[in-house]
């Protein structure tokens, strides 16, 4: 078989919060599940994130937001993706997302929500089952 397919995941932190413990643990967990994980570090603007997605062409993007800025940042990020006709990337959010915000974020095209206490394998399975390519 010539196929050497690997799942590529972008783990990124939009906004200003510096709480990267979760993002790093998840990045490491996905790596240990055999995925290739690109980690961008902190303080990514929606444009930074879109550029990274365009260039790295990941299967999935995990946004880690703990500052409560998700309702402002997610629409901007999804707008950017739309602008570049990117529709085959799975996008999920990790962090503190109140239940009542989830419907709005789902409408924008975000597919998974993982709060504190989520096991890594849950996220691994979610990525494996939901990637679009």
């Amino acid at each position, binding site marked *: 078989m*010539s*196929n*050497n*397919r*690997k799942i*590529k995941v972008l783990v990124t932190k939009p906004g200003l919060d510096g709480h990267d413990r979760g993002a790093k643990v998840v*990045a*490491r967990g*996905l*790596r*240990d*599940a*055999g*995925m*290739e*994980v*690109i*980690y*961008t*570090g902190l303080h*990514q603007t929606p444009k*930074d994130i879109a*550029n*990274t997605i*365009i*260039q*790295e*062409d990941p299967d999935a993007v995990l946004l880690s937001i703990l500052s409560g800025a998700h309702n402002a940042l997610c629409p901007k990020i999804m707008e950017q993706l739309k602008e*570049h*006709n*990117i529709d085959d990337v799975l996008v999920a959010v990790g962090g503190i997302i109140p239940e009542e915000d989830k419907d709005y974020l789902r409408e924008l095209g975000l597919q998974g929500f993982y709060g504190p206490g989520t096991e890594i394998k849950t996220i691994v399975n979610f990525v494996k089952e939901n990637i679009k390519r």
Partner: protein
Amino acid sequence: MTQYSELIERLLKGETRAAARLMTIAENDIEAAEDIVKSIYKNTGNAYILGITGAPGSGKSTFISTLIRKLVKEGKKIGVICVDPSSPLTGGALLGDRIRMKEHFSIDNLFIRSMANRGQLGGLSRATEDIIKIMDAYGCDIIIVETVGVGQSEVDIFKSAHTVLALVVPGLGDDIQTIKAGIMEITDIFIINKMDLPGADRKVSELIRMLELNMNYSYSDDINNNFAKINQWTPEIVKTNSISGENFDKLLEKINKHKEFLKKTGIISNYHKTRIKSEILKILEYKMTQKIEKLFNTSEQIDKSIQKVINKSTDPYSMAELIIEMMGIEDSF
């Protein structure tokens, strides 16, 4: 025409997303990579390729970041390929090199691509070369390939670079030792990064001593030997400070000097020949291995013969000759 012709068309128009997608395809599927490279080959050969290596802690990313800033200012379109190791246990990888390069990020003049080496022998340099070609066809003027500089396959990558830069840092102890194996011999410019740290000058003399020991190599037509390693080019040493940007103009001068050297001595055309030979050989090696493996897995005759080796009625050497015969390539030259 291939199933990728639409993507390739968009790539040749300079569309970033198409380039990125083709890279993914090339990385994941070797047969597809062949198709892609066949279609774009005539559009490649315009980029100047820089190989950059350095041990962890040598400040490589910051160094590259500063270098990019300089090059972008000159109006160049830059491609960067950051190679990181895959975990041998799980096959996964953590690719974190973008983290320090985002600062002057603009999609129009800088294309950064992270790559895991996926642990295959020789496979890395092949996949990297495919990605270099796609970046080249995409329109990058300069392509920077960055690795941590350990292992044979990384040495192979640098054989396809025009100019190889190796970073060392004052006070980092044995970093010269770690880059010595293989990379030392093919480095064109040594960078003493973080020159503001104490011990920078000591590092320079350490390097000179090391280079003197290694200066007895000479150019040969052996394709395993790097093209530029003839005794005419004496590796340069440049001290830099990536934070302040000190000495980067000097560094660019040295890179240009090396480029001129390659042109003037005709090495660059020789280089192309050598490089292409090496590349073809690598492809052949890969393809033959594939074929042999396939034969091993499917041929009943071979299976029986292996039994004979076990029974000592024949030996592995005779067995190998038999297989070459079976493949019908023994006498074809």
